[in-house]
């Protein structure tokens, strides 16, 4: 069974953050748009309503809003000579599923990268010399600058109603904000959230040590807000069920709260759910796409959907998978370093120290996703890479985001994981611990990449994507450096006890415990068609009517949570399409 549907101007693959942004921006041009979402439809009501969604087992543990590995997964190996095995159960990262994508279940941390992160290779070479870059490190420049992207960060932050405190407005350093951030054109649209006890304690300790604490920029509204599309947010009530959950309260910025109801009013926009795109179809000369082919779950048939413009807006990993399956860009070859699609997959190097205070009541269940306090005194633009022996940086931060008990109760060293002592431990220590974390960069390496698995297939018979990834000494040195900065802060706070968890020498990637859903690279942007899959406007070098959104474009990972940059790049690409591409469709570079 198969059918061919009438041609559309635009087909968008995936209806999360970037699909929604591109959808509404291109709908304003009057184009006939179809978005294809492989998961289910989702709306605040009924899908995120109170109290049904306040269910830790269903959503926090069984991952009710995430992709099911049965429907979509990857294989993993750590080295080129290891046999990759499928990720049969979710663990390390949690791609979203359904309308809204990961945009419904994030915590809401919304950062801008440092200026030097967009031109990391040039910055390192100019500042410290090319010789400090390890032989196997394949870092690149993005091909855009902080200055060029600033208006698009501003756009995303004002669309999403970000709560925060500016540290640098047009070069003027402002007390209470991040003094090390790139200049921004104006303050955040909403003031910072109130801070929890752990964050206030960290702020005081950091200040006493001469650091520069500031509130984390949060996509949890601190006050009522209406955005440019007329969508309204209400103030966050610190329900303690943010990450892994849809927001009960219209407070967390998401496609649902910020875009979709406005987008659905455009008669020239339509979307289909349970419609999984199988491949991008290319013209015979392979220089353009002719549309996509998708699986219509309801009709149980393959559908050919012709379109003039194809926007890949699925999760970063799935965009790369579709490119590999469709022949968009030469697949990357780690032996020769040639090829571009799948190149420079990177993750996030995090670590942390947990502090125990028997006389402090942290009430960890009283939490927003991204309230908290950070310092950027050890950010990537504050470190002498030559002196310290690594390239990278971290923000250091405290701020509880939930107190859900199945997801884990921190216990002091020596308390066993079961039995009478464990039970005593949870009674003694629930609500009496806090943590200080390091959220750090993860750079790109010759043998960290994505390609098609030779053995395992998905439910449509397509090869799974294979991830080759491991931790590298440079990034382990970075996180150990952060440990050396965090532990003195922790000790200065006089906890009853504390314990640390940072990657050490020889650490290997473990796909089982949750780490972060910050999978980047594989469809990287850049200035050279032989070294990047996309040009600076997220346009495929080889097929000018294919644009690829998401963190797959990052040539290596930044030290921050990716959503701010993903949102800014989406608006940047949307403007290029609207102003430059649509009047004259062609390669923009």
């Amino acid at each position, binding site marked *: 069974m198969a059918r061919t549907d009438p041609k559309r101007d635009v087909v968008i693959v995936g209806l999360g953050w970037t699909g929604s942004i591109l959808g509404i921006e291109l709908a304003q041009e009057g184009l006939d748009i179809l978005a294809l979402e492989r998961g289910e439809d989702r709306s605040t009501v009924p899908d995120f309503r*109170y*109290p*049904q969604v*306040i*269910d*830790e*087992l269903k959503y926090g*543990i*069984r991952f009710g809003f995430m992709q*099911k*590995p*049965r429907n979509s*997964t990857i294989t*993993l190996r*750590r080295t080129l000579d*290891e*046999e990759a*095995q*499928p*990720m*049969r*159960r*979710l*663990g390390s990262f949690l791609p979203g599923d359904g309308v809204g994508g990961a945009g419904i279940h994030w915590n809401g941390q919304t950062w801008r990268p440092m200026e030097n992160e967009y031109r990391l290779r040039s910055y390192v070479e100019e500042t410290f010399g090319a010789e400090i870059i390890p032989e196997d490190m394949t870092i690149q420049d993005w091909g855009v600058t902080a200055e060029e992207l600033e208006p698009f960060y501003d756009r995303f932050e004002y669309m999403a109603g970000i709560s925060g405190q500016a540290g640098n407005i047009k070069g003027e350093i402002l007390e209470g904000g991040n003094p090390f951030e790139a200049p921004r054109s104006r303050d955040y649209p909403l003031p910072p959230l*109130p*801070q*929890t*006890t752990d964050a*206030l304690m960290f702020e005081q300790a950091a200040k006493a040590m001469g650091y520069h604490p500031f509130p984390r920029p949060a996509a949890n509204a601190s006050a009522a807000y209406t955005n440019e599309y007329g969508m309204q947010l209400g*103030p966050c*009530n*610190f*329900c*303690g069920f943010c990450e892994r959950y849809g927001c*009960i309260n219209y407070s967390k910025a998401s496609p649902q709260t910020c875009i979709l109801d406005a987008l659905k009013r455009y008669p020239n926009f339509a979307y289909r759910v349970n419609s999984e795109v199988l491949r991008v179809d290319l013209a015979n000369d392979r220089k353009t796409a002719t549309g996509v082919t998708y699986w219509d779950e309801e009709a149980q048939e393959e559908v050919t959907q012709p379109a003039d413009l194809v926007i890949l807006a699925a999760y970063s990993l799935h965009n790369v998978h579709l490119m590999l399956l469709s022949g968009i860009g030469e697949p990357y070859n780690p032996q020769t370093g040639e090829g571009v699609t799948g190149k420079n997959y990177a993750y996030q190097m995090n670590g942390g120290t947990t502090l125990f205070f028997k006389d*402090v*009541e*942290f*009430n960890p*269940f*009283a*939490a927003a996703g991204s*309230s908290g306090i950070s310092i950027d005194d050890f950010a990537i633009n504050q470190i002498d890479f030559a002196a310290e022996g690594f390239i990278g940086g971290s923000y250091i931060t405290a701020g509880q985001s939930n*107190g859900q*008990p*199945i997801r884990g109760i921190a216990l002091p060293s020596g308390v066993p*994981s*079961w*039995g*009478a002592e464990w*039970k*005593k431990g949870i*009674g003694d220590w*629930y*609500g009496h611990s806090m943590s200080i974390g390091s959220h750090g960069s993860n750079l790109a390496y010759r043998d960290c990449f994505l390609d098609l698995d030779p*053995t*395992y297939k998905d439910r449509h018979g397509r090869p799974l994507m294979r991830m080759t990834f491991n931790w590298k000494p440079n990034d382990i040195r970075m996180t150990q450096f952060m440990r050396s900065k965090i532990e003195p802060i922790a000790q200065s706070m006089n906890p009853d006890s504390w314990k640390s968890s940072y990657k050490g020498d020889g650490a290997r990637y*473990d*796909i*089982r415990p949750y780490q972060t859903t910050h999978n980047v690279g594989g469809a990287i942007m850049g200035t050279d068609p032989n070294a990047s899959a996309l040009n600076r406007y997220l346009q495929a070098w080889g097929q000018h009517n294919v644009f690829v959104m998401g963190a797959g474009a990052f040539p290596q990972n930044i030290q921050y949570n990716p959503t701010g940059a993903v949102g800014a790049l989406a608006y940047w690409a949307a403007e290029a399409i609207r102003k430059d591409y649509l009047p004259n469709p062609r390669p923009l570079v």
Partner: protein
Amino acid sequence: MTPKFLQSSRRGFLGGTAAAAALTTLAVPARAQVEVVPLDRYQPDYLTAGEWAFVMAACARIIPSDGDGPGAIEARVPVFIDRQLAGDFGAAADLYMEGPFNPGSDAYLGTQTPLTPARIYRDGIAAVDQWCTDNLGSPLAELEPEDQDTVLRALSSGDLNLGDELREFWALLVQNTKEGYFADPRYGGNHGMQSWIYIGFPGARANYLEWIGRNEAYPLGPVDIAGERA
């Protein structure tokens, strides 16, 4: 009938006053009035009688009843586990279950067993009970608690090796026991929200704005998704 909003915490959220004491005597949580089947008369959906006895015994050692706070038995964790194994979780409904399977792969690559969680319990219980019978003369459930602990410690350390396909059995058993202890009571465990009361987790209240930044104990007891209070 007591209005719903007066069906207050057994901890007494007004705490210590005469009024609170009077209210507390009036306040009988609706859920407590519902008859629950005693565990020894519970008819499992998935587990056999022998497997039920094993799960009862193992849970009672993973979260024992003595000391402060409920044990897994008071929380009715075995009911939770039985229901989970009878449902999507037990059937590996969300997992990627296509071969080839290499269950002996490096553990860091994640589970690679061809067995569903329900099957891992079935085969794992059989294997441990066989080991107990061969070495200690009876299945786990009939051993003294000290001997049960010895067996479970051997299982947790890997000294009692069940083979690659059952490698996850212990981790699943501990994880599922904690899930049943802390999950919303709608899933059959956390009976009377006792574990939430014990640690001070307010369950599904989900509204704490006025409590942010206050270093003092939160005064209200938990509510569950069904709207019951404890």
